[in-house]
């Protein structure tokens, strides 16, 4: 009796897990989209690190944590140390625009604009991350809210004088001479990337408590103002 109910429970979990992958998107279409990735990444039985790290067990994994001496960029390493984990929401943001989430990533990929394509791809990758902690309610498979920035936010024209004042808060930590030991340099950051990155912190998508706090209280206009100011400096 007990054995039966345990088996039933296990079966329910397995069914649930497959169902979740389907909920994310169309894994069969995702397998086709994965061709973009396959030039650099291996996934599935026997996958090894190549140009990019293997993608088995990706969901729930700390960024930059695959062993075997894979040489991550400093930027991705830093994001991992700060606590970036690969969940549906963070992967979706990363695949959409890798540099918006991890500025200095070496992943040479412009990003997938189409939300459905990203969902399908993630549904496919999700198959290689089955793991007891990924039962339906668990965090890695939680359905993501949309993280796209509406075009009107990107279109805000910032006030550079206000941005200059606000930037004085940045220069307490980010060195003006561009040195990036311990804390990354923010000089010469293209405006749109800057705006997207600040919103990613504000939405707590990018890890790092200081930056989440700093960006968290900036209004859309203030982020635009900062971007407008940083555009003017070398």
């Amino acid at each position, binding site marked *: 009796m007990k054995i039966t109910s345990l088996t039933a429970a296990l079966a329910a979990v397995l069914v649930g897990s497959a169902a979740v992958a389907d909920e994310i998107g169309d894994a069969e279409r995702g397998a086709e989209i994965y061709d973009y990735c396959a030039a650099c990444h291996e996934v599935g039985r026997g996958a090894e690190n190549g140009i990019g790290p293997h993608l088995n067990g990706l969901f729930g994994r700390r960024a930059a944590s695959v062993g075997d001496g894979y040489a991550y960029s400093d930027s991705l390493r830093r994001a991992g140390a700060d606590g970036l984990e690969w969940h549906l929401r963070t992967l979706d943001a990363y695949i959409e625009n890798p540099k918006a989430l991890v500025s200095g990533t070496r992943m040479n990929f412009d990003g997938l604009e189409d939300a459905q394509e990203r969902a399908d791809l993630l549904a496919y990758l999700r198959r290689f991350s089955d793991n007891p902690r990924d039962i339906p309610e668990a965090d890695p498979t939680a359905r993501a809210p949309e993280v796209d920035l509406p075009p009107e936010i990107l279109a805000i024209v910032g006030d550079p004088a206000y941005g200059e004042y606000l930037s004085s808060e940045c220069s*307490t*930590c980010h060195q003006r001479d561009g040195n990036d030991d311990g804390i990354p340099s923010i000089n010469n950051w293209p405006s749109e990337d800057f705006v997207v990155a600040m919103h990613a912190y504000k939405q707590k998508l990018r890890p790092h408590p200081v930056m989440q*706090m700093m960006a968290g209280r900036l209004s859309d206009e203030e982020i635009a103002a900062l971007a407008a100011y940083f555009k003017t400096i070398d």
Partner: protein
Amino acid sequence: MTLNRRAFIGTGAAAAVALSAPMVRAAGHGKARVVVIGGGAGGATAARYLAKDGAGEIDVTLVEPTRQYYTCFFSNLYIGGFRDISSIGHSYGTLATDYGVNVVHDWAVGVDNTAKTVTLAGGAVLPYDRLILSPGIDFVEDAVPGWSVAAQNKMPHAYKAGSQTELLKAQIEAMPEGGLFAMVAPPNPFRCPPGPYERVSMVAHLLSEINPTAKILVADPKPKFSKMALFQEGWQKHYSGMVDWLGPDFGGGNVTVNPDEMTVSIDGVVEKVDACNVIPAQKAGRICEMAGVMEGNWAPVVPHTMQSRMDENIHILGDATNQGDMPKSGYSANSQAKVAAMAVRGALLGSRVFPAKFSNTCWSLIDTDDGVKVGASYQATDEKIAKVDGFISQTGEDSALRKATYNESLGWYAGITEDMFG
């Protein structure tokens, strides 16, 4: 056609500008004059931002007694052996040459609020339109019975960095094998809330290398302190059995010292100590008293502008202030300085004034590559500088995160000192 601001004033349109800064122009002298007293995280930052953003229309004079300024932040890392003393020393050359700040190495000994002048020990009298006081701390007399500033070479406070820090480290290094180091911790509020406990960590690190059977005794009048769980976890992990912290329940608030005998009495129990760090109760630097801007031990300020609540021509920064929720830290002083510089510039030149924003983060090092942090953002309300949001490192964090946090503190040190000194 290019018109710079000066040419513009010279034309018939001067009235508009004069209206925005009537006090200064009516006073009949050319440039607005700001005197800044104290060249630390508050004063140096304020001087640099005023000179940088004042576009040549503000004469900025910075009064600081020392030619070589040692930052209190990171001075514990010198004690632990992670920095040499020269790496926390800074001079004012760049502020003078690149920013045009008039740097005067002297003590300010008087303020005439009505005439709006500052008198220096050397006799000079400096007129100001706005005065910025950023003097840091002084010690409350008789706060620790038996200790006075006259005893600071026997029992250093090392809470103003430089020779005091070097002296304390030398005394710890000279302790006999298995000897006892004692710290008398201060009551709230005081400069750098995690400072005494980072210091305990750094002393423990030093002793575990050179004198591993030595002990550390901390007498503390406070039942709780900044990042307490993080420090206690770290002491247990790295320096097990070395650190004995006595809170008020165990007499930590009932302490007398005898610097000549090198003894510390805690709740009547006398301990012979081999090195002793007394960090007394604190108050605003003395120039605040001379300027008549104190209320109790600290100088109350208007959060939106950092103006004194007693004299609107005086702005006060950093440790000396009573402002609300911000801790007394170098980061806080630097943050407040930028708000004050903007407010002063707005008042004197009519430049735009934006809403005050403040923030703070305090990093502490517990052992090699084991860094932790606590921080918050703040906003100005009419009543006080009020906390908006904050974060703190967690116990049990992995070593990669702790190392990243330490590396981040190195980046911050480079960033803030560049922000202060140029």
